[in-house]
């Protein structure tokens, strides 16, 4: 792939907190569908996005069972993005900040993600065509 690009994203928001997470996922999805090599550095609350024990729930208040509620869980989005990148000839290296993971007790992450440090973000930025930092404020 002659025009294969390498992009890095840094995200900070915890699951279900802000629309920035959805926009970040949309951006990563577009890059994945182009077959780009992508690094995502998830730190602070975003380290919980790939937590494997997230579970969808029913909604008794609205009278909806589990299937009807179809509650989204970010771990499924992360897993889907990794598969999408692979299917299009690229790769998604999803790195969770280790200290952030330990602080939140979210070490059990979906397959394909790994633990890292801010040094990994620096290395990825150094070797990328572009890096987008999406802060929480």
């Amino acid at each position, binding site marked *: 792939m002659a025009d294969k690009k390498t*992009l890095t994203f840094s995200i900070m928001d915890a699951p279900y907190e802000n629309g920035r997470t959805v926009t970040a996922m949309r951006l990563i999805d*577009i890059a994945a569908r182009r077959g780009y090599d992508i690094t995502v550095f998830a730190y602070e609350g975003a380290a919980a996005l790939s937590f494997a024990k997230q579970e969808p729930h029913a909604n008794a208040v609205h009278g909806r069972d589990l299937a009807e509620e179809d509650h989204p869980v970010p771990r499924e989005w992360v897993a889907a993005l990794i598969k999408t990148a692979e299917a299009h000839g690229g790769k998604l290296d999803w790195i969770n900040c280790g200290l952030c993971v330990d602080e939140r007790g979210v070490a059990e992450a979906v397959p394909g993600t790994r633990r890292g440090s801010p040094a990994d973000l620096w290395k990825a930025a150094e070797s990328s065509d*572009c890096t987008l*930092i*999406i802060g929480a404020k």
Partner: protein
Amino acid sequence: MAKYMLIAARDPIESREAEKYCLLAADLKREGNDVTLFLVQNAVLGARKGAAAGALGKLAGAGVEVLADSFSLRERGIPTQRLAAGVRVAELDVVIDHMAEGRKVIWN
């Protein structure tokens, strides 16, 4: 000359940061840079005709390209005909285009 993609996600009514961000875009353009301001999430609320005198008004005449995310507009029920002059509807893909091009991309 550098090329910048400035992404704005905040409602300009809710935060004065949005106005400062527009001033940054205008200043970068005035210094001879190529500047695109991409509005996403609640930032598209400032792209409506009635709101254009606010933060986006700072860009009047500056020559900054202003784009509004189509998905964010649809989510908020803002039709294209309600947009202020100079604002164009765009897909989020444009951000990835600019990143792939190696532009300096900033999020606020």
